[in-house]
């Protein structure tokens, strides 16, 4: 029975290898899979996200990995297409057999894959904005970016403080704009705010004076523009051109230097809620986020140039996973998920995360800062 002998020998060797692996360097790697919209229309989100992940994973591995587990990073570019997102997530789960997934740059991409990750039971941290991702709570799905609902709440709170009760809403036709518009319409009555105009534009439009002329004819006390890209810059420029002196509120979608650059002096006086990253140096030293933010900013800018809040969401997701793995002590999908859910007091770029079985985002309204643009610069209000 030569065959049997061989089998016994083989099993002894493999058993010894197994024993050895416990103490030596050959620990099981932590496989992180990612699908991001690195090119395509949402590239301004996906590109800094990927760079952030790559930069920090490289750094973690150089320091010996997470408790000795080296991180293996698998990445696919969805180009912002939901169908591609589905294909890649299936591949990440079935072929690459990853332990955790971080990604889904846009809400559309994320919502498309929720069923798949739920069925496969893989912990998934989304980098997209929509509130629908975590409400209602899905067992395996988490997210790090602030929601449009929080943005609307923050804006309405500020309006209330200034005694504004009638506003004009102007939004684009993209997914982000539409979702934001729905949140504004739903939340306004709770703050005693009446929406007296509800205008829309196409994100590729060249001129919004028509919509603003209609707004000028109403008794609105402020204008709220929910959008991103070049359209909000045209809105504020057109408002100035028409001589409209109402306070203008923008969403967190314009929280990049580009907006100020494009809108020029028309941007002055515009208020918006945004993550603390863009005003990191203005935070008081007692703020726990300040150090994290300045570190991230320094590292990212040294390697890639100007930092954006979007890359910060990837930073938050990565370190929530890293901390969860450290606490779990083993590479196991279910245990990592449980530990992600137990994240408490994690100081990230988006705010301080406190997750729970009923809250898979874990950020409070204080995670958003109210910012005003003054003399072409961000000014932290509160």
């Amino acid at each position, binding site marked *: 029975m030569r065959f049997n002998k061989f089998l016994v020998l083989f099993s002894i060797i493999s058993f010894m290898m197994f024993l050895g692996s416990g103490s030596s360097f050959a620990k099981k790697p932590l496989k992180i899979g990612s699908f991001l919209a690195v090119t395509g229309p949402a590239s301004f989100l996906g590109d800094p996200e990927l760079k952030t992940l790559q930069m920090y994973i490289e750094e973690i591995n150089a320091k010996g990995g997470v408790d000795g587990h080296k991180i293996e990073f698998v990445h696919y570019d969805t180009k912002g297409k939901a169908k591609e997102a589905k294909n890649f997530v299936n591949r990440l789960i079935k072929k690459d057999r990853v332990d955790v997934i971080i990604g889904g740059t846009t809400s559309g991409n994320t919502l498309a894959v929720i069923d798949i990750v739920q069925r496969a039971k893989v912990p998934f941290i989304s980098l997209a904005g929509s509130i629908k991702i975590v409400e209602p709570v899905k067992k395996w799905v988490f997210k790090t970016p602030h929601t449009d609902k929080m943005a609307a709440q923050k804006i309405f709170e500020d309006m209330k403080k200034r005694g504004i009760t009638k506003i004009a809403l102007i939004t684009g036709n993209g997914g982000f704009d539409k979702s934001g518009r729905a949140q504004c319409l739903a939340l306004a009555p709770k703050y005693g705010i009446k929406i007296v105009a509800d205008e*829309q534009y196409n994100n590729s439009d060249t001129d919004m004076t028509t*919509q603003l*002329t209609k707004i000028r004819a109403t008794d609105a006390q402020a204008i709220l523009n929910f959008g991103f890209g070049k359209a909000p810059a045209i809105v504020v420029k057109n408002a100035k051109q*028409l001589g409209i002196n109402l306070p203008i509120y923008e969403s967190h979608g314009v929280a990049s230097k580009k907006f100020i650059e494009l809108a020029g002096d028309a941007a002055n006086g515009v208020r918006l809620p945004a993550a603390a990253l863009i005003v990191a140096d203005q935070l008081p030293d007692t703020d726990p986020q300040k150090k994290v933010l300045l570190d991230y900013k320094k590292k990212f800018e040294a390697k890639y140039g100007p930092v954006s809040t979007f890359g910060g969401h990837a930073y938050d997701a990565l370190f929530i996973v890293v901390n969860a793995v450290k606490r779990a002590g083993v590479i196991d999908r279910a245990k990592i998920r449980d530990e992600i859910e137990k994240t408490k007091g994690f100081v990230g770029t988006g705010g301080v995360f406190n997750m729970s079985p009923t809250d898979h985002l874990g950020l409070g309204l204080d995670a958003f800062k109210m910012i005003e643009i003054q003399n072409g610069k961000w000014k932290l209000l509160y």
Partner: protein
Amino acid sequence: MDQLLQFFISGLTVGSIYALVALGFSIIYNASDVVNFAQGEFVMIGAMSAIFMLKAGIPYPLAIFLAILISATVGLCLEKFAIEPAKRATVVSTIIITIGASIFLRGAALLIWGKDIYGLPPFTDNTPIHIGRATMLPQNLWVMLGTAFLVIVVRYFFDKTRVGKAILACSYNKKAAYLVGINVKTMLLIAYGLSAALGAVAGVLIAPITFMTYGAGVMLGLKGFCAAILGGMGNSMGAVLGGLILGIVETVGAGFISSGYKDAIAFFVILLVLFFKPSGILGKGEVERV
């Protein structure tokens, strides 16, 4: 009344942008019956080259001139390396080639200039001009002026110059044009170069108002194309008329009906016009060639 005046002026400013882009379609159409779907990309390339040369410190007027030259070169290359090798292609196949070219140019622009949004400074002072309670920007006047100037140039070119007439002859009958001694190949090359240059002028004029990205050519090209078929393809006056009508219908529709359905209203009007006059408002209609 205040509102109507502003809607009308907004319509004119938007419409003149569409008209400017629409003009670019007419030259290549007149030369070969081909609708060049890369026309929007010519507009984008003109604007983006001007923006980046200005950033590099080249004086504004020189940057504009060079941008037009760059765009024209791209147009010439497109004809030489994509259209000419497919000389036996039908009109439809050539149109498909131009769609491919537009995707290629967009990709190239993405690699060269990145994904960011850029603006150009306005040509002159930026204080709004008031007409009653309605306002417009001085740059809008530049766009209108540019459109008017280019219409005259294009008209003059096709009606009075030998090259222009030769290009028209090529479109009527290639073989006959060849027999009377017109170099058909060269004419087509000239048409693409001029068309690209025209697109670049449009791009430089509108970039201070609308901003530019590598992908902005798609929507501009589409709106320009709509304006061109509304007014009558190949007719430069038609392009202007089509552009202005499209702009005014959009703004008045948005103003009085709903801004959410702005484009739907505009497309409905286009469909209506084309239903009753398929060749466009100023189009001559299909002439049966025997």
